[in-house]
């Protein structure tokens, strides 16, 4: 029998309420993703892609965002591994289940788009689209509007490491750093060392992606995105800088890809990569923030809750064929 772990004395640099909240959200996100994968396996969805392995970074990002609609709040131009962020903003996980099942009730696309393609105008979550990196070309637009508007609202754009090879990443750097017109934008790269099957080390002469900002005079930082505490603190600093200085910041977060690229590559758990939740839980336990039993309970609770939601979604209808004609154009108001 394993004994109670010895408590580490020196305190963690974040409030334990916050730590518990972060843990809760990370587990929620993981359980959601695992359920989505299961739905795919059981034929309740055609394709899965998502964010397991990026929770330690994505959850703090969501917690630190100014949530709301319009220029005073933060815009998120995310990509398809963003569930942790969206849940941390307070989104009900049922939306993701509905999108997975392509039901008419799917709040993000009405059954039109793939899983994890969030969209929520009410919270400035710009529609996630499948093409890699186009979000980096669009993000300067919302940031420019915010620069003009003033206040503390900023733009956040995220994407993967392989995608930085697309010219749009450079476009983002160029447009964010025009002299005298610098933009309040947090440019994020989540570096998981892979683009589908292609290893970063075979393609990237640029060893530290964040360095690409330097020639533009952009503040940069590379962090351990598997550590939610480090992520929180670094994001807090970077976002604080962008909010106050109204200037760009390029943040590279090293993360894991825990279920491979997507269902197209099997969506099996990868044992070789660090699991941020396992590591975080060790730390929380060691520091006496949560016990193993409490954490198990958190997971059990989410598993149950999300399973119940999945059952609910199972019987929801698909969209009608005739709905294809809806929303080609926004109607005049």
């Amino acid at each position, binding site marked *: 029998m394993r004994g109670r772990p010895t408590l580490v004395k020196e305190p963690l640099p974040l409030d334990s309420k916050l730590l518990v909240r972060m843990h809760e959200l990370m587990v929620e996100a993981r359980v959601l993703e695992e359920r989505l994968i299961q739905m795919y396996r059981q034929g309740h969805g055609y394709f899965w892609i998502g964010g397991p392995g990026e929770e330690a970074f994505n959850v703090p990002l969501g917690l630190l965002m100014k949530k709301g609609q319009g*220029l005073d709040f933060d815009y998120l131009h995310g990509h398809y591994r963003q569930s942790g962020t969206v849940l941390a903003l307070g989104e009900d996980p049922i939306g993701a289940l509905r999108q997975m099942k392509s039901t008419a009730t799917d709040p993000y*696309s009405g059954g039109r788009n793939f899983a994890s393609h969030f969209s929520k105008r009410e919270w400035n979550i710009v529609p996630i689209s499948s093409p890699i990196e186009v979000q980096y070309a669009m993000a300067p637009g919302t940031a420019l509007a915010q620069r003009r508007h003033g206040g503390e609202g900023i733009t956040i754009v995220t994407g993967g490491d392989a995608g930085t090879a697309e010219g749009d990443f450079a*476009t983002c750097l160029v*447009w964010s750093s025009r002299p005298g017109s610098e933009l309040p934008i947090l440019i994020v790269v989540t570096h998981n060392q892979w683009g589908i099957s292609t290893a970063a080390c075979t393609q990237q002469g640029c060893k530290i992606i964040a360095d690409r900002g330097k020639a533009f005079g952009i503040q940069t930082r590379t962090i351990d995105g598997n550590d939610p505490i480090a992520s929180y603190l670094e994001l807090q600093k970077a976002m604080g800088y962008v909010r106050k200085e109204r200037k760009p910041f390029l943040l590279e977060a090293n993360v894991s890809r825990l279920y491979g690229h997507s269902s197209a590559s099997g969506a099996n758990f990868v044992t070789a990569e660090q699991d941020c939740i396992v590591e975080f839980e060790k730390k929380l336990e060691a520091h006496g923030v949560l016990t193993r039993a409490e954490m198990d309970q958190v997971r059990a609770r989410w598993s149950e809750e999300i399973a119940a939601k999945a059952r609910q979604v199972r019987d929801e209808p698909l969209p009608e064929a005739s709905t294809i004609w809806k929303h080609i154009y926004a109607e005049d108001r």
Partner: protein
Amino acid sequence: MASMAQAIRLALHYAEDHLGVTDVLGEDVGLPLGGVFTATQGLKTAWNSPLDERGIIGCAIGLALAGQRPVAEIQFCDYIYNTIDLLKLAGNTCWASNGDWNVPMVVRTPVGSGIRGSIYHSHSFDATMTHIPGWKIVMPSTPLDAYGLLLSACQDRNPVMVLEPKALLRMKGEELIPGEPGDDRVLSKMIDAPLGDRMQWKPQWPDVQAYTVPIGQGKLVRPGTDLTVVSYGRTLPLSVKAAQALESEGISAEVIDLRSLWPYDWEMIRESVKKTGRALYVNEDTEVTNFGEHLVRRTVEELFYELLAPPRLLAGKFLPGIGLADPLEMASVPQLPDVTEAMRALAREQP
């Protein structure tokens, strides 16, 4: 009377003051140049962008998502082809988000031949653009229509593409823009930037008025009974001239200026073709997978049994470019004799 370039400038000025346009962005649209065709001189929201078309379209989308009203310029449509994915994205964002978001942006870009633009300043963009869903697409052939269509575009909640026929940008109109001073020299003094240093220059805007051409409405430019000619842009005035010339041969051609390519005024075309039984579509884009072929298809689909002759298309030759030397450009895209001959042949065609 204002030229089309001046009309565009006046429209954008009006739209800045009254329709909430926040950004006129693009390469060289701001000071000191005000656009390679002078269309954006003196505008208070005009600013020069980096030399990056993907950035321009991307930024415009972002601005639109953030509730701004951007009008982006691509300096020549020849340079828009690295942004087709972004144009598609702008066109599908409303649909993909099931109506959650809309993208109220305008893109303006000069198109077509007629200024000896060689391979990369002569492209047409109507074929490529009409294949992209989610956009509205307009193409004026007179200054007043340019003004009216731009005002509509700047009020639309959806992305609108404004194709500006290069060959007509310097042509003066025959109708006054509401509020435009009658004397061209007066107008020029007021709104044309002076040569030399312009950094201190400020335009004196005439008090132009609201005037919109609804998107989707064609214009019956010239009534006729023997055949219907549908055109837009550079080839529209050629079609009118040809129709005038053919009158003396006893051929009465009805000429429609489509003005809006999507949505387009099918009603107007249908009524006309029903009457004449003969339809000629004229544009200068290359002729394979050409928008005129869509119009031909629709015509046979709905009006086949009322046709007296096959509907015809007169368009640009299917060539990799328009050559610079005079004989090359003349042979590559429809010129007045080509339009006249096509109209004559169709009017006289017998089974």
